[in-house]
């Protein structure tokens, strides 16, 4: 048993106390003396030419301090794309400028083109209503296929096309894949849509900009998953200032799920306004603004083909995808449909030949970018759905077809045909575990019970692997990343032995303050209570890349581990000096430095105190202080994997689907805090069920958002989900990071949607509706009913 507070213990979260008593400190909870308020005026049309914006009347309204429009930001840089992708023909992707405020044209409903700063929020909003904008309505480009063939109506006129790039992965595989299809005994084809989602972190985005005229320093409090990345983007790319003149603080952040990775124009605008007015300027999104302006997720249209033998052995896989990037390139939008999608198309299977084609498309809709799972849910969904369809066509059991094609433990490390090397895994073990915890053997009996109640019961499986722990800089550099994806930690041992750990990771629900303290305390043999985790403030923390892509533990946690090891090494030097022994003879165990083979020892606290009271240090060979920083850049991605089972009950009269049970057997490598890991899986599965059954960001043909509030965008509620069964006892520790950890944040959202949809199709087939081979997500009652009743 792990000791309480150490690695492997379900230590209760320390951050909970403040959240449970109303003492959390989110961006909107912070108020600075003299602050003014910003209201952004957003386009009501999807596509329009801005002829003139008359702000005279509005500027004279009560309380108005200033009004800025796109003209005021033309000298600034654009919000950049973080990944440069090349098309199959070698051309670089099209990269139109994304200005702070729309200039020349508005390109989606919600595109901000003016900001009013006033004494109060209501005054700013009152004044915005009096801005007279002369905008010529242009035809909206909404549907991806039509956008690609349209050479007249362009989202960005200057690039001459609505296509951002046409990417092949791996282009060299293409001929062999096509040849395999030409001779394949069986081919299963499926057209599907990975539905567009709105992330909807419960805390809407908010930013508070401040400027100190005395020093020329800017400070931005903002809802960010990665304050250093925000600082870099805003300072170096958009506003054009040295990074050391900008501090970015992401205090408590109420969920992110990807949407708060990115820099948005509102952040630069409040900073600029704060400088112009010499007053702090605050903006807090209303939920309806979030729906219009947060980066959305998914939105792929895919044709996937699977070539197999008659026995269901996978021979080759081929996909063609159109991926929506919306009106502008958000920071990671070009990586999501490519290197987070195409590279995992092998799944956990030994398919020898794979080719992926992705065309990304500009449309007059909000930008689309990474949302929990990012690319990997899209790949997993396509793959797990086509496998299910194939199994049905060939009359093979759904577990059996997977088992037959899963990689076996002796095949690791495994080079996939799509560019990754899986270091370790045991996919049979998780499938076996699932068979047990989901009681697959008892399904028929449960189905009979459901049938007695007039309900159709179905079982759906998904076996999946993802690449996360994002990411090895050398690898992503080859793939087009313009940033490194290391992380960093500073471990500062204070004079009385307590510790501050400054990390580049950012917690917005993940419980880092608890888990990271467990890791550091465990390695140092001290109580977790004496370790504090500091995150979210660029003036305090080392340059780390933040939290997304299930990277905090495997990358930032590894940096922390390295820094702790440096502390131990330094402690040994100090102990050797204090104990008058050779450094090589010092052993460190359970918080004590001792001379091997003797009872001479110093506690960790004594070493720490000595480091800051170095009265007799040999200063030429021993520096005072006990503080170390480490950067960690992973050698490879990590590859969490799992097997999920969903059982649904379907009401044949209404088409309504209820999740009867959901079970997950995951391999996350070594687990630091099982309670938190379970919570991450629950949350991911909840979002996956939301995608599968409920959520669907929808624009009409004019680019008007039809799902602009919780009245029309269906979020999963407590009554939409069951208690989940989760297990992570099958673990194959990651082979290349010091914690053996793989990451667990995205897993649930990746593995669950296909399990749900497979279960619905299964229920329909078992009830004789064998003509229904696919229903697009969300599998709403209306869609199920329509599918059941189609001719």
């Amino acid at each position, binding site marked *: 048993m792990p000791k309480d507070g150490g690695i492997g213990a379900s230590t209760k979260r320390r951050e909970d106390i403040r959240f449970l008593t109303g003492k959390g400190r989110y961006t909107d909870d912070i108020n600075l003396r003299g602050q003014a308020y910003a209201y952004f005026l957003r386009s009501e049309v999807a596509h329009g030419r801005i002829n003139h914006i008359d702000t005279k009347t509005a500027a004279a309204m009560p309380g108005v301090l200033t009004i800025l429009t796109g003209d005021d930001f033309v000298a600034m840089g654009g919000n950049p794309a973080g990944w440069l992708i090349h098309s199959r023909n070698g051309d670089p992707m099209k990269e139109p400028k994304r200005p702070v405020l729309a200039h020349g044209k508005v390109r989606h409903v919600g595109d901000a083109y003016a900001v009013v700063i006033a004494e109060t929020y*209501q005054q700013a*909003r*009152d004044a915005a*209503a009096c801005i007279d904008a002369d905008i010529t309505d242009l035809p909206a480009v909404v549907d991806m296929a039509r956008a690609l063939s349209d050479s007249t109506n362009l989202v960005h006129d200057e690039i001459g096309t609505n296509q951002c790039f046409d990417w092949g992965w791996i282009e060299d595989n293409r001929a062999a894949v096509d040849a395999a299809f030409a001779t394949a005994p069986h081919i299963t084809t499926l057209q599907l849509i990975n539905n567009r989602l709105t992330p909807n972190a419960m805390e809407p985005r908010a930013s508070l900009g401040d400027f100190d005229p005395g020093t020329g320093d800017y400070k931005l409090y903002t809802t960010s998953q990665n304050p250093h990345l925000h600082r870099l983007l805003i300072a170096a790319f958009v506003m054009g200032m040295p990074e050391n003149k900008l501090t970015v603080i992401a205090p408590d952040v109420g969920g992110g799920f990807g949407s708060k990775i990115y820099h948005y124009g509102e952040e630069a605008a409040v900073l600029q306004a704060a400088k112009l007015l010499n007053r702090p300027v605050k903006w807090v999104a*209303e939920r*309806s603004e979030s729906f219009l302006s947060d980066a959305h997720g998914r939105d792929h249209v895919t044709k996937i083909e699977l070539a197999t033998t008659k026995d269901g052995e996978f021979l080759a896989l081929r996909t063609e995808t159109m991926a929506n990037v919306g009106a502008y390139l958000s920071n990671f939008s070009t990586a999501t449909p490519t290197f987070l999608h195409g590279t995992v198309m092998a799944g956990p299977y030994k398919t020898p030949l794979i080719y992926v084609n992705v065309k990304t498309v500009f449309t007059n809709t909000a930008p689309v970018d990474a949302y929990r799972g990012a690319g990997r849910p899209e790949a997993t969904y396509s793959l797990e759905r086509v496998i299910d369809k194939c199994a049905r066509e060939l009359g093979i059991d759904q577990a059996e077809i997977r088992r037959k094609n899963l990689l076996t433990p002796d095949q690791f490390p495994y080079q996939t045909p799509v560019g990754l090397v899986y270091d370790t895994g045991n996919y049979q073990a998780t499938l076996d575990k699932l068979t047990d915890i989901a009681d697959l053997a008892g399904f028929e009996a449960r189905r009979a019970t459901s049938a007695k109640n007039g309900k159709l019961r179905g079982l759906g499986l998904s076996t999946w692997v993802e690449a996360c722990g994002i990411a090895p800089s050398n690898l992503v550099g080859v793939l087009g990343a313009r940033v490194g994806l290391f992380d960093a930690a500073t471990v500062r041992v204070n004079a009385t032995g307590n510790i501050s750990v400054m990390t580049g990771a950012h917690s917005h629900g993940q419980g880092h303050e608890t888990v990271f303290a467990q890791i550091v305390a465990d390695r140092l043999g001290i109580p977790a209570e004496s370790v504090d985790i500091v995150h979210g403030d660029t003036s305090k923390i080392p340059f780390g890349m933040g939290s997304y892509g299930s990277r905090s533990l495997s990358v930032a946690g590894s940096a922390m581990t390295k820094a702790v090891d440096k502390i131990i090494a330094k402690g040994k030097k100090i102990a050797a000096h204090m104990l008058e022994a050779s450094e090589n003879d010092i052993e460190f165990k359970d918080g004590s430095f001792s001379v091997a083979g003797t009872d001479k020892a110093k506690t960790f606290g004594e070493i720490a105190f000595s480091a800051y009271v170095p009265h007799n240090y040999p200063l030429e060979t021993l520096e005072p202080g006990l503080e170390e920083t480490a950067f960690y850049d992973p050698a490879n991605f990590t590859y969490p994997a799992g097997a999920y089972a969903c059982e649904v009950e379907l009401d044949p*009269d*209404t*088409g*309504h689907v209820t999740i009867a049970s959901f079970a997950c057997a995951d391999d996350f490598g070594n687990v630091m805090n099982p309670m938190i890991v379970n919570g991450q899986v629950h949350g991911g599965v909840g979002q996956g069920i939301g995608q599968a*059954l*409920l959520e*669907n960001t*929808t624009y009409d043909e004019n680019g008007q958002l*039809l*799902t602009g509030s*919780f*009245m*029309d*965008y*269906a*979020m999963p509620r407590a009554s*939409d989900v069951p208690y989940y069964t989760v297990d992570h006892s099958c673990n194959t520790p990651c082979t290349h990071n010091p914690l053996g950890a793989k990451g667990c944040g995205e897993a649930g959202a990746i593995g669950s949607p296909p399990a749900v949809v497979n279960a619905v199709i299964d229920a329909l087939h078992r009830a004789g509706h064998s003509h229904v081979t696919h229903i697009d997500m969300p599998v*709403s*009652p*209306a869609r199920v*009913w*329509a599918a059941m009743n189609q001719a």
Partner: protein
Amino acid sequence: MYDFTLVKPKNLADAVAAIADGAQALSGGQTLLPTMKQRLADPGTLVSLSGIPELHGVCKGDGGIIIGGATPHAVVAREAAKYYPALAALANQIGDPAVRNRGTIGGSIANNDPSACYPAAALGSGAIIQTNTREIAADDYFRGMFETALHEGEIVTGVKFPVPQKAAYIKFVQPASRFALVGAFVAQFADGVRVAITGASNNGVFRWAEAEAALSANFAPKALMGLTLPADDMISDLHGTAEYRAHLCGVMVKRAVMAA
């Protein structure tokens, strides 16, 4: 939202006087407030009805129960249960618990949202809508989506529900708003059956005459066999086509009959 002056009269006469001056009534506000936040309403003066004792409460009267116009759904759910369980059960399905503590029957009936639950109960029960000036039969009151027989300045002071022998409301929720995608209220009275459907029609809540006739002859699910509603006037939106709603009407009515 636009600013306004809030007045909170302590009796109906003062409320009526204030509203006659062009002010708008604020009952529970659970629909009005979100509308005001979007600046879709600019009432100038809001007259809160929450402090008027005569508009609150559930009581048994001649020929039914009377619910004060400013009575929150939660109170109806609790206090109407002994008189009219189906009505109480319906009230208990509106919105969520916090909304039910504020939202009122008068507000719902005056707004006549095409997907609201109360209009189905009122029409399905043959209720009488009481205002500060008159009584209006439910059959004359609901005039289409967000349209009612109310005049400018008229306040719903109460709703009188005849209590049927049997009744039930079955609601199939729109998954986002949790309003009714289709809701069916079925009530069996000594002189016949009433069937009211909400959520489905472009014309708001309506009675299904064929189902009423069939159920009046035989109050059993099988009496509905073969009965369908045309999809022509049904709402078609993100959450369901007109055909689907028409289909659900039949299913929900049948289930209401079984539950009654």
